[in-house]
């Protein structure tokens, strides 16, 4: 069987000023091919103004099964949210 080609994850910025968003992936041998394949596959209807491609093997991800422990540190810090605070009646624009 033939050797697999690399998988590249594709991120698309739909409009100038917005964040790039994950769209999917493509197979490609190098970065130019990855960009061109991503353009053909994900932006045939003007869905993008900029594309990032990243080799899938270069992405580091947290493990979903450990997510509880991993994100635990934020659980008891409700004071980081604005709704934690009591505002006096009648106070406006705050």
């Amino acid at each position, binding site marked *: 069987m033939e050797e697999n*080609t690399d998988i590249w994850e594709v991120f698309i910025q739909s409009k100038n000023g917005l964040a790039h968003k994950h769209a999917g992936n493509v197979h490609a041998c*190098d*970065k130019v091919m990855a960009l061109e394949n991503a353009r053909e596959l994900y932006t045939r209807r003007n869905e993008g103004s900029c594309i990032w491609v990243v080799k899938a093997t270069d992405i580091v991800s947290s493990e979903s099964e450990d997510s509880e422990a991993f994100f635990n540190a934020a659980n008891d810090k409700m004071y980081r949210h604005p709704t934690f605070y009591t505002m006096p009646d009648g106070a406006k624009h705050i």
Partner: protein
Amino acid sequence: MNDEIFQERIDAEKKIEPKDWMPEDYRKHLIRQISQHAHSEVIGMQPEGNWISRAPSLRAKMILLAKVQDEAGHGLYLYSACETLGVSREKLVKQLHEGKAKYSSIFNYPTLSWADMGAIGWLVDGAAIVNQVSLQRTSYGPYSRGMIRICKEESFHQRQGYEIMAEMAKGTPEQKEMAQDALNRFWWPSIMMFGPQDSDSPRTGNAMKWKIKRQTNDELRQSFIDKTVGQAEVIGLTIPDEDLKWNEQRGHYDFGEMDWEEFWNVVNGNGPCNKQRLDHHKKAHDEGKWVREAAKAYAKKQELAGTN
């Protein structure tokens, strides 16, 4: 224990993601279903590709090219989703070539006239849309996201097909006859695209329990027929089923018995074009081998030169 937690997540309408634990049979069912779906998109390029060089106008030709390119794209979305289950694209293609993976039988019928481009877009893509809209809610995250993307692009396919049928139906008597002939040939294979009746579909139980499928074959088929009858009437074509009639009590159309012998015959490889479709795919794959090798060699060279 894991199975119970898994089922609870499914019942709570939570999506399953690639790294989550899943029963082995769930993974196998998904690989079979998604790869079959991917292969269908790719093999489905052939009956339409057959008409690109003979399209009756430049407009029709550009549209058909764009549609066939979309089918390639849909195949790639689905291969990507399937790969997240731990199977490589190369292996999936190998399974197709060895006859271990199937694709939708509808693509084993020949496309004899330009009207067939109309019938395929209207009926085959129409049936696919009914199925895919339902699958947007499938429990496996990557499959669901692929379906959402595909559905966004697919409705142009159905409308272009219906437009061809409508144009031909109001053309010369010969053109109308071609349109009717295409409908006659594609109607039954299209409604058989939804698969065997629920009573003969052994895998439906698990697929529904795991919410891979959200509606059964028979429910989807009924929904497609209910949508399509009126569309045929509008353009003055007749659906080739004498038993087709509105059932007030059920609130659905009743329809005739499908020819299941033919269905299984085509599924098992004896349709009019099974061999041709697979041979063509193998040939294209083999002939592209040097391109893939050259691309890899070029990437290697750039890497050594430190420019990649």
